[in-house]
């Protein structure tokens, strides 16, 4: 259904894209046919019922946004919704009590059923939650999860128990939970561009730097322990290294150059990729130790070379180069040789980000549009097949993959301000995470221990 809708949008805003590219998802969110899950509305006893609107919305959202399931529409669900295992009764003459087959057969055709109820117990909101595989012959075999979850007796608590339950359900399917992961980004809400962090759902937004200058381009190490960024604190672009464990700045030696900018960590988190004018001329790509030492030049051209990103599963770089005119994405070996262009040469292609699978990249491209009108694309760097994920929703830039390889965080200018959004790798499930000031250049880091 989503694909049909997307194709319709493509026809409206980008006919070129439709003709050139097959409309299939490069990244199948769950790697094949997604199981169908039925999540009927849960009810609460007594005072708990007042929290159920928040609970039901959140649980449905968590499971839908994970991209792991096909969500069974609530309209086709049976009238009798079980609230606890004892509500199930094997079919018998005249019985209208629920049974597993009510959920597994048409029109529901679910593989799984999440059900339960809530109650206020000793001042806490208690969720009694079950997950059943409704294709099993009996209740004993059907039960996958049967657990009590506790939260505060308010809407925040209701959302919290929904998150806990959803996280357990996702874990049953081997899906990576994003709980504990952090998004680092740039916000100007204080009047200056500073580095901020937030949880993956947009909550818990915190200011990290307070340099009152222009501080931007955050990159987080794959191990989640370090943050590098670029600041004009000393009146020119310089790299700063920051420990996310101690919350302190680490020493970093900047080359004596008109600009030094951090771009990425190597997959082992032991080196930094940067672009700099340290070689005297135009910006080139370098690699250094985490303290800026042992600088190694990788590109040797007379054109602008920026944004090197190393393949997490190999040693090739994807980067942005102006060697062919307007900026395009290129790939090269770690010695800087054998560069080849990945994008078609149309428009401007920038902001590459590797999927943890080492096969796909996400990037921003103006292909088919005026300069500045970027959309988010994904590409299989082996086949160079690409797919446009955002369509007709303003200017979209700086995509960055979540550690689960399924979600993408990016910035989008849909009104007068830039804000940070997340979506699934097929372009569905777009959510806005920020609202205050302008927010841009998000990077998604794994949970810090």
């Amino acid at each position: 259904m989503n694909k049909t809708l997307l194709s319709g949008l493509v026809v409206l805003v980008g006919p070129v894209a439709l003709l050139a590219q097959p409309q299939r998802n490069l990244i199948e969110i769950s790697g094949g046919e997604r199981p169908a899950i039925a999540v009927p509305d849960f009810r609460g006893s007594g005072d708990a019922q007042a929290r159920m609107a928040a609970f039901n919305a959140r649980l449905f959202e968590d499971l839908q946004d994970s991209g792991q399931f096909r969500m069974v529409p609530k309209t086709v669900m049976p009238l009798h919704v079980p609230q606890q295992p004892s509500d199930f009764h094997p079919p018998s003459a005249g019985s209208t009590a629920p049974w597993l087959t009510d959920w597994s057969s048409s029109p529901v055709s679910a593989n799984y059923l999440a059900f339960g109820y809530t109650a206020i117990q000793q001042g806490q909101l208690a969720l009694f939650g079950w997950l059943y595989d409704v294709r099993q012959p009996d209740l004993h075999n059907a039960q996958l999860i049967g657990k009590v979850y506790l939260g505060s007796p308010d809407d925040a608590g209701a959302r919290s128990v929904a998150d806990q339950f959803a996280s357990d359900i996702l874990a049953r399917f081997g899906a990576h939970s994003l709980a504990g992961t952090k998004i680092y980004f740039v916000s100007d809400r204080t009047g200056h561009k500073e580095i901020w962090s937030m949880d993956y759902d947009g909550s818990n937004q915190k200011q990290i730097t307070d340099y009152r200058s222009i501080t931007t381009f955050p990159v987080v190490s794959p191990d989640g322990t370090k943050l590098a960024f670029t600041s004009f604190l000393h009146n020119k672009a310089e790299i700063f290294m920051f420990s996310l464990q101690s919350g302190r700045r680490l020493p970093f030696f900047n080359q004596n150059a008109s600009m030094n900018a951090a771009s990425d960590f190597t997959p082992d988190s032991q080196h930094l990729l940067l672009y700099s004018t340290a070689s005297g001329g135009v910006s080139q790509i370098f690699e250094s130790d985490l303290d800026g030492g042992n600088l190694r030049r990788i590109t040797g051209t007379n054109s602008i070379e920026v944004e090197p990103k190393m393949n997490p599963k190999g040693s090739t770089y994807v980067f942005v180069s102006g060697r062919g005119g307007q900026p395009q994405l290129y790939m090269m070996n770690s010695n800087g040789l054998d560069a080849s262009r990945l994008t078609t040469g149309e428009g401007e292609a920038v902001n590459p980000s590797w999927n943890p699978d080492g096969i796909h990249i996400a990037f921003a491209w103006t292909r088919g549009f005026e300069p500045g009108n970027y959309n988010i694309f994904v590409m299989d760097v082996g086949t160079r097949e690409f797919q446009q994920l955002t369509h007709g929703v303003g200017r979209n830039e700086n995509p960055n993959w979540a550690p689960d390889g399924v979600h993408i965080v990016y910035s989008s200018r849909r009104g007068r301000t830039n804000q940070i959004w997340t979506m699934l790798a097929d372009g569905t499930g777009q959510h806005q995470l920020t609202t205050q000031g302008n927010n841009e250049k998000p990077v998604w880091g794994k949970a810090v221990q």
Partner: protein
Amino acid sequence: MSHRISLYVRNVGAVVAAAALLTFTSACKKKAPAPPPAPAPAAEAPAPPPPEKPSISFSAEPTSIQKGQSATLHWDVSHATDMSIDQGVGAVQSSGQRQVYPTDTTTYTLTAKGPGGTSSESVTINVTTPPPPPPPAPTESSVDIINSQVKDVYFDYDKSDIRDDARTVLTGNADVLKKVFSTDSQISVTAEGNCDERGSAEYNLALGDRRAKAAKDFLVQLGVPGDRLKTISYGKEKPVCTDATEDCYQKNRHVHFSAGGQ
């Protein structure tokens, strides 16, 4: 304390006087009876001399200063137990000196109190205001010249080539900079490259740098000393306007020259 000592001394005096009287009386016993002496006066010591009034020597050196200079008060006081100088100086020892910085003509009064009474002496320090220094000769600073006469240069989208209009501007800038650099060895100039908002921030950082270097290279070709010209890039982080119009984009695709120290 000194008061108690003087009382003691006075009593000793009375004892001595009484003893002298007794000695005189016994010596008379060996002679012919004589008429009884005149009755001794009441056995009372004579009053000691009154304590001296404090004496003060108080002077200022010099007695006339210019505003901002200091003068020194000297004093020497005797026969006093409490000494103080007004105008904020406060209690002082019986002899000493103190540097003072009056901003206006000021009279200092030293007051000394002792058993003999209170004395005071005054000195006046005349403070004159120096004439204002002659006004500096009016000169335009190098920074002012650079800010007013060195113009921004503009670029095409995604380009760092020096356009014809920029050649004219840079040629004028070169003349100004050569003149300023030859007369002021302390000043330097930074070429700041900027871009419009359409390209990516990352690419624009490098593009702005390239524009700044292109402008610098052009100036150096015209004879401006390269070691006095720095380059930096703000990419698209320091826009002069934020409208999504070609007019505003053009304003932001520029190199600005700012003056600074070497």
